[in-house]
């Protein structure tokens, strides 16, 4: 997946491996049988003696059928299990007792976001709160009272038009509280691999974990009308 976020890169790889194994198994079986058990030229033996108006002879094998109920079941239980862990992180509580990202940063406190290789989770000392509001068809970012270095909003030229630019600081955790002014939108932080809908009359939230110095486009990923495709913004993470 080109290393989007360590939160699910390993998960992705594991899924791809299992997909490949299931694919090789199934297609191997399919190709083997469709070649090996093909009818020869001109021959058409009626193996199970199918006759019109007669329900065919039973052909089953309880052990085999239970095998391919149980084996996929074990596999999906395992896949569910490994998918479970990152959820705790992406839906982390926003407090130090039960969350991963501490409490809201006091003045001058640094977030120190790190990816803990052992637990496979992001951890931070504290987080900063920002607000995102969707409008037809632009994004409004609000850094509240954060320092310029941690969060800044400006405009920039993207594809020949002025678009909002959100500047974030590397190794910092942000908690975005989001809403919409009109219809459903969804900010997709493509390089962080996260998105969450913004709904009018509702506050949604997501953790924005900036841990790479990069500039990327933020896209709208819930259809919102005419200029949906052009509802873009720049995100810039600086050191």
């Amino acid at each position, binding site marked *: 997946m080109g290393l989007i976020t360590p939160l699910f890169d390993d998960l992705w790889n594991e*899924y791809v491996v299992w997909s490949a194994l299931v694919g090789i198994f199934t297609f191997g079986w399919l190709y083997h049988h469709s070649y090996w058990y093909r009818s020869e030229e001109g021959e058409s033996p009626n193996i199970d003696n*199918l006759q019109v108006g007669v*329900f065919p002879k039973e052909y089953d094998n309880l052990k085999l059928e239970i095998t391919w109920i149980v084996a996929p079941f074990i596999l999906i239980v395992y896949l569910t299990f490994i998918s479970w862990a990152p959820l705790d992180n992406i839906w982390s509580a926003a407090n130090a007792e039960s969350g991963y990202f501490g409490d809201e940063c006091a003045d001058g406190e640094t977030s120190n976001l790190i990816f803990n290789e052992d637990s496979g989770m992001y951890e931070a000392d504290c987080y900063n709160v920002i607000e995102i509001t969707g409008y037809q068809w632009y994004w409004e970012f609000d850094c509240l009272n954060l320092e310029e270095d941690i969060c800044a909003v400006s405009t920039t030229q993207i594809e020949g038009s002025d678009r909002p630019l959100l500047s974030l600081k590397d190794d910092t955790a942000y908690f975005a509280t989001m809403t919409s002014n009109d*219809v459903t939108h969804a900010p*997709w932080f493509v390089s962080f691999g996260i998105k969450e809908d913004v709904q009018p009359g509702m506050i949604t939230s997501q953790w924005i974990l900036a841990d790479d110095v990069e500039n990327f486009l933020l896209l709208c990923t819930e259809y919102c009308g*005419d200029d949906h495709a052009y509802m873009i913004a720049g995100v810039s993470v600086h050191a």
Partner: protein
Amino acid sequence: MKRKTLITRSMVALILISVAMVVSPAVNSLPTGVGGTGIQTSGCNCHAAAPTATIDVTLDGLPDQYNSSETYTITVSFEGGPIESGVNSGGFNLWASGGEFTVIDATVQSRATAEVTHTEVGNDYRTWTMEWIAPSHGRNVDFILHVNSVNGDGSNSGDSWNRLDLSVVGSLGVGLDPADPFTVLATLIIISSVLLLITILYGFYRTNPEAFDWEHLAPWITEWLTSTDHKKIGTLYFIQGLFFLGIGGILAMMIRLQLAGPEMGFISQDQYNQFFTLHGTTMIFLAAMPLINGFANWIVPLQIGAPDLALPRINALSFWLQPFAALLIFTGVFSGQGADTGWTGYAPYVVSAGAHSGVTMWVAGQIMLVASSTLTGINFLTTMAVMRAEGMGWMQMPLFTWSILVANLMLFLSIPAFGIGLLQVYLDRTISTAFYDIAAGGDPLLWSHLFWYFGHPEVYVVIVPAFGVISEVLATSARRSIFGYRSMVYAMAGIGIVAFIVYGHHMFTSGMSPSLRFVTMLTTMLVAVPTGIKIFNWLKTMHGGSLVYRTHTLWALGFLVTFTLGGISGMFFPSIAMDTHLHETYFVVAHFHYVLVGGTVFGFFAAIYYWYPKMTGRMLDERLGTLHFLTAFVTYNGIFWPMHRLGVVGMPRRTHTYFITTDDFTNLPEWAADWNLFISVCAFLFFFSNFIMVFNMLISLARGQKAPADPWGGWSFEWMTSSPPPTPSFDWNNLPVLKDANEHIAHEPSVMGIWFNKLMVPEDNEEVNN
């Protein structure tokens, strides 16, 4: 509803500009020049609200008609304004609809390939020179030039601007402006309709070439319009389904033309939004569902040994609601105001003032489809419950009939939720109720819940009948009984039950409560188990068989490949951590097209090749069929396989364009544009390859070999009747009786069988043995 006044976007822009003029009358102009589409339409309003006609703008050096790719040196100049010349006295901005500008001195800078403006140095001049390289396509190029005459003191008093529009004729000559996509679409729909009419007339001509006149045609048409025969209605469904498969395909081609390159302008985003909405609605409701109902109408009564459906007139009503619903759904397109909400029609956009007026008709049409589907459900469930032939218990029904039973049961239980949602939207849009008015306390997620409570079972409603077809085709082609008949039935029933508890996976990023999302993650994973059973059972069916390769066999094997791939990619979505990335991207588009085209459509292509001889009495041409399979299978994978990767690297769905990484911002890598072009080419090849099948069907109708009653050696009752079957399909006084090769099953139903029988009303002549 806030649609008392219909304010166009340009009016909004003008109002915003006027407000900005009042609020900040002394905004300084940017000395390095500004640009963008807003400036292009309404001018540099920081200098003055409206253009000043006394400023004399000239654009020299352009020919009347350009030569392809030739370079022209052009000069922009103007006279007039607050001061004659001097520091900070001028500026300009020039756009061209084609070609490329090259900067030759420091007074001019390029903003995009076809947009130039002055630099900070260039601010002091009133004449600027640059080069323009004409495009190679030879079409007309429009130039828009804005000049600003500025007073030079940094304030805006007395500043003025003016605009010049110029058009240069291309080497292709005058009159080759691009066509309006709506005109293209309407033309193609009309052509398709005319072709359909000609085909129908030809069909009539073939029935009796001697009697090709109005006196015979009128009763023939009346017969088709008023028939309650399940075979005739099945054929009508079938024709409607194929016709709209074509229309949906045309819409898809328009979409693919637009996406062939990044930032193409083949259709506007307004049109694009309508096209993908109609593509989805058409393909699901007007193509897939009628195709399924066509086969269900034709084959289910034949398979269970019934002369007709239980409620033939309700059956006719179910069908005749469809064309009128289709008409309503498409109404908006002909006024340029078609539904632009996506087939999911998420609230509150669907009731907002911004949504097109055609949405109301689109909703009304779908309400009719809800009625149609409900009636169909009643009809089939009743028929299967009471009209099975003697000797055919529930567990001796052919698997295609079982699949229709499961599908209709699912549809019957889920579609009322959709109907309620549609009625709410319809009332919101027409008489200003406030179900989805958020300001009045409406719930933005209500629609999503109602829609997906129906929408997820719906996609299984579309795929399960294909399971039934593949079960029939593979078993017959392998000359074997289906492996694990009972586990096949339980697997389908299992899919039918699980369908109702997984819909939340469409809403993993919706802001729905995390605990609900987590539960649907677990249940969604479960879908893999019954689906796996079916795939492994099909594979095991071939074991020890003698697989006869015919066109329908090829399609069934192709189905196994593509449906398995679609199933595997589906496993990525329930993992919510990944779904936050993959949701609403082309990965999703790839997945559901693998399941809906590679599953449903391939399944029904197999059904067409399998049952066509039964339906028409004519065999299809196997060579054309094989050619169709090979071309369609290869190009189909060429369309949808690359989409997986595109989605992962950051291409969102339902967008009019996509963005390639620039120096400033990362988005799609450059190869994404190449793959999109590849996909578009494959899409056209796939589209046209399906005409091989249509051609095959028509040519075989006229010149095909006569089909025997049982050309493939199947066992179920439809192969007992002649090809085509008589009307009524079976003699009421001499109904067939199913024999059973396994006598013990008939007398010893399993525990589940007894339990299931208890749930059902027994037939008069059926013994309840428990």
